[in-house]
């Protein structure tokens, strides 16, 4: 393992080499101009995949140095993978972008604020957990979360837009609500499943964690929630911290392997993609790693493949529902039909496909914190498609999509709500009361 920790110099060279492997394939055809959501907002070639490939080429050849404008350009990327999914030459421009961000960190170091969050707070974890609990308490006792929330005026101090709507944080984290081992409720144990909650499932959307545990244990699975799990590293790597992300990924890999699991389930699109795929960029390849990544399932995928949900298990939900494809599910993991299949099984639900269901909603994890205005402009297209679909609920499988879509729906005074597919399934099972009581 120690051989995998490299010097800054080695890392810098590796990042440039790996970027070059991608951009060298670019034919400069321009097709990415027709799909890149960021480019559509800026209308400047610098921000499209083709332009970013060219910038990377210039950096590698030494013809361009790291400049503010270069950094700004490569930070304008959602890692939505729309370009790579449509590229005729098989280029992954988002990886060129990530490699460049990591390269810049090897040259300039990590900003102290990012270092504090990624290498101290996220790594130690308890400050985040306690911090969230304090905010959660304050949200309930002092200021609420609605539009009249007076704390709004302080948002800009923390780099957040004032008009932004935050979700209610959880008072108790999911990981503290449940024991490490949650036994099957049917008597038999079909599989022992590790549950990677993700930060959002742990600290914000604990109802998702509850849905996952209830459904899996209700259908005869044992659910293990390792207490020492940490962030999967996605926001860390997206913000240029290769080393911080590597440490987190290695940690989770080593941790989950100790539990003798048959499968690992996640209910977050980015956690899923990172544990299945991105981890291979950070953790040295080995049969153990292959085995680990092969065991990871998105919860929608797991249920659709493994659980036979009988019509008599489900109670009716009176909603018109559409589905938004998170980038890291549809393009990141090829999961498209499974969540739709689940929604269509629920009695009473009228499923309506919306237009452009698989275009990025603009949230892109931390992008909607650092680039709020652009991310909302991108989201405005999504809101229009949701409104045109004429639904009550937009279901999806990613916490940052839920957060961002809900925020902007509220800003549009629109009545639709964003929810997780898994929550709707759990609600339907509860409505009947045989599998989940």
């Amino acid at each position, binding site marked *: 393992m120690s051989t995998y920790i490299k010097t800054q110099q080695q890392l810098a060279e590796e990042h440039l080499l790996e970027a070059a492997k991608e951009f*060298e*394939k670019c*034919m*400069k*055809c*321009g*097709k*990415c*101009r*027709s799909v890149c959501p960021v480019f559509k907002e800026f*209308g*400047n*070639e*610098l921000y499209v995949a083709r*332009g970013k490939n*060219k*910038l990377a080429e*210039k950096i590698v050849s030494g013809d*361009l140095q790291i*400049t503010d*404008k*270069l950094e700004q*350009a490569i930070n304008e990327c959602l890692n939505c993978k729309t370009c790579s999914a449509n590229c*005729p*030459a*098989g280029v992954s421009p988002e990886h060129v972008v990530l490699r460049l961000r990591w390269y810049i960190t090897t040259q300039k170091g990590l900003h102290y604020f990012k270092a504090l969050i990624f290498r101290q707070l996220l790594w130690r974890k308890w400050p985040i957990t306690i911090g969230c609990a304090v905010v959660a308490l304050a949200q309930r006792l002092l200021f609420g979360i609605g539009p009249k929330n007076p704390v709004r005026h302080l948002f800009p101090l923390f780099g957040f837009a004032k008009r932004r709507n935050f979700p209610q944080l959880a008072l108790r984290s999911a990981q503290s609500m449940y024991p490490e081992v949650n036994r099957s409720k049917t008597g038999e144990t079909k599989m022992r499943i590790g549950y990677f909650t993700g930060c959002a499932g742990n600290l914000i959307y604990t109802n998702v964690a509850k849905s996952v545990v209830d459904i899996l244990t209700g259908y005869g699975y044992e659910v293990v929630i390792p207490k020492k799990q940490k962030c999967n590293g996605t926001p860390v790597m997206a913000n240029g911290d290769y080393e911080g992300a590597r440490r987190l990924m290695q940690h989770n890999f080593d941790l989950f392997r100790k539990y003798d699991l048959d499968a690992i389930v996640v209910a977050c699109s980015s956690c899923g993609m990172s544990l299945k795929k991105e981890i291979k960029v950070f953790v040295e390849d080995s049969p153990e790693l292959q085995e680990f990544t092969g065991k990871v399932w998105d919860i929608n995928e797991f249920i659709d493949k493994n659980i036979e949900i009988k019509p008599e298990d489900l109670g009716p939900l009176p909603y018109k529902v559409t589905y938004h494809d998170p980038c890291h599910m549809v393009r990141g993991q090829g999961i498209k039909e499974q969540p739709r299949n689940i929604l269509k099984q629920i009695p009473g639900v009228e499923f309506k496909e919306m237009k452009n269901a698989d275009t990025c909603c603009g949230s892109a994890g931390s992008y909607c914190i650092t680039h709020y205005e652009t991310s909302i402009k991108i989201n405005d297209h999504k809101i229009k498609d949701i409104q045109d679909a004429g639904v009550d609920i937009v279901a999806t499988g990613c916490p940052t999509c839920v957060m961002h879509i809900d925020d902007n729906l509220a800003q549009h005074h629109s009545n639709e709500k964003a929810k997780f597919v898994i929550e709707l399934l759990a609600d339907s099972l509860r409505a009947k009361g045989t599998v989940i009581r």
Partner: protein
Amino acid sequence: MEKAVIDELVTIFGQSNVLTDREDMIAYSYDAAPVEVEPEAVVFPTTTEQVSRLMKLAYRVEVPVTPRGQGSGLSGGSIPLKKGIVLCMDRMTKVIEFDPANRLISVEAGLTTSDIDPIAAEAGLFYPPDPGSVAFSTIGGNVAENAGGLRGLKYGVTKDYVKMLTVVLPQGDIVKLGSKCVKHVAGFNTELMFVGSEGLLGIITEVTLALLPIPKHRESALAIFNTLDDAAQTVSDIIAAGVTPSTMEFMDNATLNAIQNFKDCGLPRDAEAVLLIETDGEEHSAKAEMVIVQSQVEKNNSRDFKIAQSTEERDKLFAGRRVALNALASVRPNLILEDATVKRSVLPEMVRGIIAIAQKYNIQVGIFGHAGDGNLHPTFLIDQKDKEEMARCHKAVDELFQLAIDLDGTISGEHGIGLEKKPYLENQIGAAGIKILQDFKRMFDPKNLLNPGKMFDMPGESA
């Protein structure tokens, strides 16, 4: 570039429509051809008036200007060879007027071509020219390159649909050319001067295009052949039998194998050629035409012939063709896509000639293209980092062009001359042909400031 000039640009276009940073110059230094030159400024007009003011300024201070659409051009036409200003048209995207009664649409030149069809479809109309780049090229770029597409045989190319143009001439005059009437003979056909002019004679800012009714029905089929001659003979025979298919796409053995390696599309690896054929129109006539197609295909010893019975089956038949370029791109690190075109009667000679050239220079090649109009896309698969291979490839390209000329064809069917084919143009059109181009250019642009150095050199100048 002098600060005073940049200040004037800002006055004309506004701060947010003028770029001068190095990073931006890098982003506007290339198109889809393998050349790059960084400009000194990039401007984005939103009105014809602004373009006119720019050209007056350019003429006054003698700065070169290179028009650009979306930069999907394959011949280097939008590269600012002499630096200066890139005039990027892609923010002029308004639909000026949709006139279904006269089957016309007037749009600004920066509109993406594929944005026309959803509007036209509301009145049951469509815009036929469909280059592979419809979703990422501008209508102005299409006009400037006289772009073609898959449907060229039956529906023609861009020039067949251009009714009127608004053009800013190099010295800043604004002219409206052509007419909305079906027939008009008032003066020369000046609008067609600008179709295929590659941004050398003027800047197109508005275009009025003719539209056609969407065909009611389509029949699609795939024919597989053991020999090239059988496939080529079939193409000739179908047309001789009085049928004009809307699509007649050809793929050779190397392309078929590349596709099958890339993704199983159910194509036979040992076939020498396949044709994808579509007829369209009223249902009964499209079907009747397909019956004739079938008889011609069978007469020429086809190995297999399938007519799609549903949309899904149609999609399946076309799956291979759709990924052909992707598949070829995955064989080697880079590719060079050509568009030499010949009469369809000499298609087999052309294909055999290309394969022989590729073998001679030991370069991998895949050939696909629009068989009905003889517009082939021989695609050389190479590694640009391998200098020695690149040198061989250049020789192969030289011979390919000569082959097209010898067969009474053309070095470019749709991608244009630009920088990439400039050295070969005289071989095709001769010294007298070059001279008349130079004369036209001098008449419109005496100071040679609009897209200089493209297509041909002016006397006394060389690249």
